[in-house]
């Protein structure tokens, strides 16, 4: 009797072990990780057009072309230790369609390994696409998906986004390179703090306008260049800011962690101010229905480079003169940004709205819905104080 029970038990165990095992198990080497995702206007690539001609098509609208960057390129048996590094490190593959999920699944009819998004690091959206579709629509899948982590960073590209993924030096994966370049934020404020998906989600939900870092690329190289503005109400791209504008936003927001201000003396030779520390204080003033802002920017820095060899930077007098020059330069930069924000694009991307919402939540509630328009009428004053505290290791 006991033996029969044991037999039963073994039978059940056997069934459990053989039938249940590994529902969700996929060996890691049978998967394709993609590190970058580029989203362009729908325009089938040449390969795709060829494939379509031979019947590889399905009903769809060509709204969006998604390119993924698969790392590492792993084809069975091709790897031998000696030629590592010579082969391309990644594989870019594009598909066109009107649903991101469908596109991603469509890769399964072209690749032997399923693609997973757990290791997606950067998403690059072409400004052309962002102009037509709202960011909310474009990124809806990415935000909803369980594979893609909200930690991945979103960029814009004024050229074709897929070219950005293509542009890299040999032995380098451009998605990871872009990810790494973000860390240079503390070297120069031309590199913005990356905006990741969860921040983007919050920004889109709050209907605030915001900026995303812009990437430009050539065949061989790529670079961070300014930023693109996304209008909060529509979620569309409306225009670009250049590199000094991006720096100015950092100055206003007080996010500058490093960098330099270059200006010219009367002799038209460059002098450089290296930022050591900075502080920015924004204050919203409300008088009746009138809102105004005052921004107080203070910074300490070093005289790092001086082409004006006649003047001695270690002299206090010259320092004070130079401070004036730099302050002027900075206020020019900021004015240019303010003009772009208030007159050209009529958006607020420098955190004035946030400041108002914190300091005067009741006023904010009234103007919240049409803040961008409201903002273009609001006077903003700046008070900039730069202080040169030292002049480096050379006295002359």
């Amino acid at each position, binding site marked *: 009797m006991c033996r029969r029970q044991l037999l039963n038990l073994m039978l*059940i165990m056997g069934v459990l072990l053989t039938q249940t095992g590994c529902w*969700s198990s996929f*060996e*890691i080497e049978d*998967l394709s990780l993609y590190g970058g995702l580029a989203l362009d206007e729908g325009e089938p690539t040449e390969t795709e057009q060829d494939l379509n001609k031979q019947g590889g098509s399905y009903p769809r609208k060509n709204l969006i072309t998604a390119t993924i960057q698969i790392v590492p390129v792993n084809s069975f048996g091709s790897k031998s230790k000696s030629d590592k590094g010579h082969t391309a490190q990644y594989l870019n593959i594009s598909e066109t369609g009107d649903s991101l999920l469908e596109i991603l699944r469509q890769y399964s009819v072209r690749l032997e390994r399923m693609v997973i998004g*757990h290791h997606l690091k950067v998403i690059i959206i072409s400004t052309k696409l962002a102009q037509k579709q709202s960011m909310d629509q474009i990124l809806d899948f990415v935000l909803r998906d369980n594979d893609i982590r909200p930690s991945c960073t979103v960029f814009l590209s004024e050229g074709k986004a897929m070219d950005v993924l293509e542009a890299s030096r040999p032995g380098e994966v451009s998605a990871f390179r872009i990810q790494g370049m973000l860390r240079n934020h503390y070297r120069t404020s031309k590199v913005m703090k990356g905006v990741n998906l969860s921040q983007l989600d919050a920004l889109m939900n709050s209907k605030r306008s915001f900026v995303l870092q812009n990437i430009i690329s050539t065949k061989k190289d790529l670079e961070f260049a300014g930023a693109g503005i996304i209008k909060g109400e529509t979620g569309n791209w409306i225009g670009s800011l250049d590199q000094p504008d991006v720096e100015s936003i950092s100055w206003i927001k007080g996010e500058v962690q490093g960098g330099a201000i270059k200006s010219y003396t009367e002799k038209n030779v460059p002098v450089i101010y290296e930022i050591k520390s900075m502080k920015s204080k924004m204050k919203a003033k409300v008088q009746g229905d009138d809102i105004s802002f005052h921004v107080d920017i203070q910074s300490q820095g070093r005289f790092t480079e001086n082409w004006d060899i006649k003047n001695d930077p270690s002299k206090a007098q010259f320092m004070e003169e130079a401070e004036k020059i730099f302050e002027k330069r900075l206020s020019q930069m900021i004015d240019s940004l303010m003009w772009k924000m208030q007159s050209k694009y009529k958006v607020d991307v420098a955190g004035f709205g946030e400041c108002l919402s914190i300091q005067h939540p009741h006023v904010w509630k009234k103007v919240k819905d049409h803040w961008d328009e409201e903002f273009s009428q609001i006077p903003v004053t700046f008070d900039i104080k730069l202080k040169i505290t030292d002049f480096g290791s050379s006295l002359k």
Partner: protein
Amino acid sequence: MISMWSQFVSYIPDWTTFMQAGLTLLIPIIICYSFRSLHSMIKEQNSTEKRALSTDSSGETSGSKLAGDYKSDVELIKQAIGNNCDVHFREFIMGGYEVGATLIFVAGMQAAEHINTQVLQILMMNAEKDSKDNKSLPSNSELSAYMKQKLLPVCEIKEVVDIRDLNQSILNGHIALFIEGMPNALVMSMPNEKTRSITEPTSEALIRGPRIGFTEVLSENTAILRRQGRTENLEMTMYEVGNYLKRNLVVAYMKDIVNLDLLEEVKQRISKMDMDYFAESGYVEQLIEDNILSPFQQGQNTERPDRVISALLEGRIAILLDGTPFALIVPVTFSMLLQSPEDYYERWIPGTLLRILRFFAAFMALMAPALYISFISFHPGLIPTELAISIIEARQGVPFPATIEGLILAISLEILREAGIRLPKPIGPAMGIVGGLIIGEASVQAGIVSPFLVIVVAFTAISSFSIPMFSAGITLRILRFVGMLFAGTLGMYGTVLFFLLICSHLTKLKSFGVPYVTPISPFRINDWKDLFLRAPLPLMKQRPDMMKTQQKKRRS
């Protein structure tokens, strides 16, 4: 109303769910039932055996007495044990008195030299001198007293009249002396048991600490314990165990420290043990443990007297069996398995560091392959990107899924380890080279396993060797395979379930009433000084709370 009803109906699960619910109930019941029957089977067998043996022992007679007649007595003995080739009957004439005498002994169990000088020489020659003063031999009853007091310079000597006793003592290595006219036999002991000299314990090597280990002789072992320090509170109680071949067993404890309920429980369990022969203290361990089905040991075996003594001072009880150098310490808790006496001999900072290292190693030994499998086959998204990419590159062309791959390597490692123990010492290292280097390297080259897994498995193996208790290491290695199966089925979730299952089992497990995972839980903050941390000695003022000792304080 109807719509509400239909809505309600829509929420009733379909029949497959009910089937699954049935399965949910059925399988545990079957498992529980079969475990119970297994348990009762073991119990039943134990009890039937006992009944059979008890009838057997009652049939034995208590033995007859010697008749008192020299010739017939010797004949009687000859009949009983004379068939053995190694029992010698040395007959001689006692010098001076000219009476016959017989010396009976087993060859090889005494020092022949001592028999010659201390018995034969005296009786055959020195007695002659003595006889000049006395002329005649004392009468029957005084003879044995005379022999003991005047003639034989042997410290252990007694008179025996019971034949069975006599036979047993002869066979155990005593010398029996019959003299014409003496009604009883004199039994002397001049043991020359060939024993191993006291050496360093090989199974528990230390860098710093006494180099002394137990031997196979019980009396020596108890003496070693006594020699650890002078106290009148170290009490040792002797038990005779084994139904067929009898052996001595000693229960040692500090009588003013040990908890009396615990002592009572231990003594009770020892007296209930029922086995024809106790070959090693492992028999005792298995017969007195609380839970037979648990993979965890419930008695700690050790060769080190210093370990035993410090356990006794904590209020534990040691069980020593004749014929084995391994003493048992009960009750045991999980943390003890990861402690080494060296923790206390070194200063507290290195001691603490080693403790933490061992806990980490134990965790790794248990979990590392399971974690590897769940990461590789289930959750590629939970590991860092760089690592994921290098693993993918390393695993190109590996034909097996991670679970199978892991099992292959782990099992071959176990075989290797087992083979290494059995091999003669000079070949052992060669084995390590063949197994570890050649097979490992070749299998990676051949693409059967990935180099990353080799690292994981090797790390696991080394971790399990770093556990000071050999038997605890085995437990963890067995459980590791279970963990791999869990991970292979349900990934990370399975691994978490496995961990919870182990926790549940450990908390349910008790060793002589002490919860196995004390002092982690039940939480005894005072005992935490000696858990992950090895607190400085001045801080360890108290004996462990969990032992509920009679004396709490370690210091006066």
